[in-house]
């Protein structure tokens, strides 16, 4: 369907699919990214059609490298795309700062997908500010059709101004679906050539460099002015509503849909208008001036930080003579919440208070009792690891080894499914959690505090993909500086959390073609870390190894806990063991057990039967890893190998 030739026909597309289709209609040749929710499906969809669409699609080692790979495509004259989640832009930002100065050749689009409310993140980062910081155009699609159309246009805009264009999506656009009318596919396969023999100052034919900086910077700002001219006439900015509204809502992205819903629910469409902006940086001043002059009250609806609000206020102040006095409502005065996701309710509340329209959505009492009931009566379904997940077993052993050691050792966490060890799922073992690779960097620092009296054992954890992404430099740092710490690499052989994308340790590419893989163990050894391996499903050996390495080894060491993700294509649906509980032996809540398996270990495949007072195996979801048989203090859990 992504390669459908049915131009003009409507299809139901997920936002990320619409973006991928837009890139294909633009004739993209190179696409690179690093997996991260909610962005991953863009690269995945392109990878799926790569052989048929003559694309090069790559899951890069990290976001910075993915931007560099995509930039190479652009430098060679190809249209290229780079995709990442919001915090990926931070990783890529150093290269980005220089890329925007050297400029691009083939159309190049950077797509960050933000995650307001941190539904699948450990931050609520804002990528929009990078567009302003880097002085590049920013586009924000307001619906699914625009997701496709604006992506296509972004490539044209990039070529027009010879610079990167940022197109920002959010979870509710990337992951929701809507109707999209397809356009024409661009199937021409351009040839790539990198020209560098022209004049040093010629951005089209000379070397691609940032020097001389003042000269290039002047050029870059001129490009941005050119973008403003195009934005003034852009069909992606449009107004709907009365000529002189009592209230003007200025909004962008998914908030546009929330705003429309709010006005409809309040029956306020004749009183308030919506200026929906698709080009949010730099703002088109003439368009804004016209609309700001037509209303006295302005409500700015956007997600996370007051990006639009600040920029509009500056523009209004600069043009106060023609616009006149305006009352602004938004995040700064508290009309709109300044954190978390937006939704129609927030907008309804804001509009009803500004326009004095009485509105009772959900009665307050009802809402409150609903909250209490859901808290007290509903089953506790917290985030946890899957049945058969190796992380549960790994943390079991790490936690126990640190307890036995008895010196208040702790684990610096990292980014992946295994971050959930801040929760009971991983027995609360993780005590710091920040960005990709940072657990090991932080541990490297902790491991140097002995002279100040810090005698606690220092452990970091990091997944296999995270190790390649940003863990490696931290390990190099720890080894080189003689930090006393243990890095545990939770190697489940894939970028599991985001949907099993390959990484450098996996012998295949995004499209499934064979590739050489990089061996983590050899990398660690060559860095100079004393390196050990273990199978986390062997919990007694793993606990012993962790304890032994903590107590009897010094310096930066590595323990690789290798066991594939239970959802990996190799393992999914294939049980190693049939597992059952002998209810005659199960001690249940008695002294001597007190439901260790269902209360502490808590694999979802173990179920507590409160009427019999015994544990049982949920055979439907049990992955057959057999670890619980080793957990049970009474030997009531039996496992037998499945005959293949």
């Amino acid at each position, binding site marked *: 369907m992504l390669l459908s030739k049915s131009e003009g026909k409507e299809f139901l597309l997920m936002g990320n699919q619409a973006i991928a289709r837009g890139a294909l209609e633009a004739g993209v040749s190179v696409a690179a990214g690093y997996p991260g929710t909610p962005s991953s499906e863009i690269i995945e969809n392109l990878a799926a059609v790569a052989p048929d669409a003559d694309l090069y699609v790559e899951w890069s080692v990290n976001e910075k490298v993915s931007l560099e790979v995509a930039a190479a495509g652009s430098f060679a004259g190809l249209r290229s795309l780079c995709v990442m989640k919001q915090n990926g832009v931070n990783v890529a930002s150093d290269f980005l700062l220089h890329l925007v100065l050297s400029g691009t050749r083939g159309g190049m689009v950077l797509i960050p997908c933000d995650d307001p409310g941190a539904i699948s993140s450990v931050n609520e980062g804002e990528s929009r500010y990078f567009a302003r910081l880097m002085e590049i155009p920013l586009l924000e699609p307001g619906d699914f059709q625009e997701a496709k159309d604006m992506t296509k246009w972004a490539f044209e805009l990039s070529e027009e101004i010879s610079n990167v264009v940022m197109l920002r999506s959010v979870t509710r656009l990337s992951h929701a679906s809507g109707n999209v009318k397809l356009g024409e596919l661009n199937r021409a396969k351009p040839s790539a050539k990198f020209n560098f023999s022209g004049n040093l100052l010629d951005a089209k034919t000379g070397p691609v460099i940032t020097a001389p900086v003042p000269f290039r910077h002047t050029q870059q700002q001129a490009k941005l002015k050119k973008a403003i001219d195009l934005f003034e006439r852009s069909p992606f900015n449009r107004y709907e509503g009365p000529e002189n509204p009592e209230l003007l809502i200025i909004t962008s992205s998914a908030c546009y849909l929330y705003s429309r819903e709010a006005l409809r629910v309040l029956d306020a469409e004749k009183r308030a208008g919506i200026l929906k902006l698709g080009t949010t940086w730099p703002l088109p001043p003439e368009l804004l001036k016209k609309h700001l002059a037509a209303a006295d009250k302005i409500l700015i609806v956007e997600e996370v930080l007051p990006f639009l609000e600040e920029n509009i206020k500056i523009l209004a102040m600069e043009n106060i003579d023609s616009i006149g006095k305006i009352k602004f409502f938004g995040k700064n005065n508290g009309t709109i919440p300044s954190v978390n996701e937006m939704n129609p309710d927030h907008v309804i509340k804001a509009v009803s208070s500004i326009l004095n329209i009485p509105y009772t959505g959900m009665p307050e009492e009802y809402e409150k009792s609903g909250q209490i009931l859901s808290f007290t009566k509903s089953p506790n379904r917290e985030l946890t690891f899957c049945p058969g997940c190796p992380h549960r077993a790994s943390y079991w052993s790490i*936690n126990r080894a640190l*307890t036995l050691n008895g010196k208040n050792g702790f684990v610096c966490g990292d980014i992946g499914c295994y971050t959930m060890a801040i929760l009971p799922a991983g027995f609360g073992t993780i005590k710091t959690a920040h960005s990709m690779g940072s657990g090991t960097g932080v541990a490297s620092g902790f491991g140097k505090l002995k002279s100040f009296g810090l005698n606690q054992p220092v452990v970091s954890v990091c997944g296999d993909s995270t190790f390649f992404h940003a863990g490696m430099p931290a390990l190099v740092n720890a080894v080189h500086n003689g930090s006393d710490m243990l890095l545990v690499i939770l190697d489940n052989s894939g970028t599991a959390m985001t949907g099993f994308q390959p990484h450098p340790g996996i012998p295949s590419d995004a499209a499934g073609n064979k590739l050489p893989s990089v061996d983590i163990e050899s990398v660690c050894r060559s860095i100079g870390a004393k390196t050990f391996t273990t199978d986390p499903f062997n919990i007694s050996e793993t606990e012993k190894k962790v304890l032994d390495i903590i107590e009897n080894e010094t310096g930066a060491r590595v323990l690789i806990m290798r066991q594939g993700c239970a959802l990996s294509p190799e393992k999914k649906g294939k049980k190693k063991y049939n597992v059952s509980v002998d209810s005659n032996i199960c001690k249940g809540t008695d*002294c001597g*057990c*007190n439901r*260790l398996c269902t209360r502490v270990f808590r694999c979802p495949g173990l179920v507590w039967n409160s009427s019999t007072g015994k544990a049982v195996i949920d055979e439907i979801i049990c992955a057959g890893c057999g670890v619980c048989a080793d*957990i049970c203090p009474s030997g009531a859990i039996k496992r037998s190998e499945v005959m293949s």
Partner: protein
Amino acid sequence: MQVKGSKEIRAGVLDSGLCTGCGACVSLCPYYATHKGKTVMHFSCTRDEGRCHAHCPRAEVNLDMLSSVIFGEEYSAEPFGSYISIYTARAGDKAGLSSFQTAGTVSALMKFSMEKGYIDSAVLTKNDNGFGVPVIVNDPSGIEKASGSRYSVSPSVKGVNEAINSGRKKIGTVSTPCQTLAIAQMRGNPVKQENFIDPIALSVGLFCTWALRASDFTDLLKSMGDVSTIRKLDIPPPPSSVMEIETGNKSYIIPLEEIRKLVPEACSYCHDMTAEFADISVGVFEGRNKQNIAIIRTERGRKIFDEAVNAGYLIREEISSKDIAPLAAASINKKKKGLAKLADAELVNSEGKDAVIRIKKSTLESIFKGGALCC
């Protein structure tokens, strides 16, 4: 006694520096473990009542109730607690022991008991890379291998729990006073298990003034060489005030004041020097390095002891009250000091909170009044 759970053990014992590392709570359930002489707790148990609390020698120990279980009488304010008789003792030729630390009384008693079938297994303590760990011995020839003083905190009661778990019904135990107290509490079936039969056939207690933090003591020993080659650890009776260590082909003498720095805080609360809840308590006879003092406390202890003497496994002699006076003074001294420290921390007969010790008020008063705080 009031049985509570692991919450009280964690807060009132483990995290309060009161844990003696006896191992009474280990191997009963998956939540307690011991490593290098320290008892730790994995994860958390939510039960309000558990054997961990019921057996712990530092949680709600009712000395009068315990005494009535073991001796059929109230707790005695006497320096040695309840007993029948006191002798000097040493191993006889029939015991066939080739080497022993002082006088070999304990090894000879255990060996005799096992050979005669009074016990089917013995829970002793062996040296594991410098740490004392419990070992279950099922063969008389294995008893001698686990002889000798340890000095460091060792979780011996863990071995008793494991022997019970493996179905042993006539267990012989050798234990320090805190361990003996824990074993005695278990024998009283405080959690009222159905069909409970006391699995301990002979409880031999060891005199103890203090133990050493295992980890630190092992580090000290390791600094002297290979801990597996240690032949002898000994503290000769006063006035020598040193510890003698023989390892490899070297011997070391360390001043006791250095050693005392390694005594855990938990020992300073101890009120029991002579393992008052054992069947027989054995320890050094100051000034007589070829003889032990043996306190015979129970009828079954007396029976086995007498038989061992008659069979030539043990040689006993009468002991004068003058000869036991120093031990009595030291014992009453420790009792007063330990109970006073517990009382200062409001851990004796506490009201509205958990006590470590409960004891009849008049008995407590007569302990504080009796004897002199000297020697």
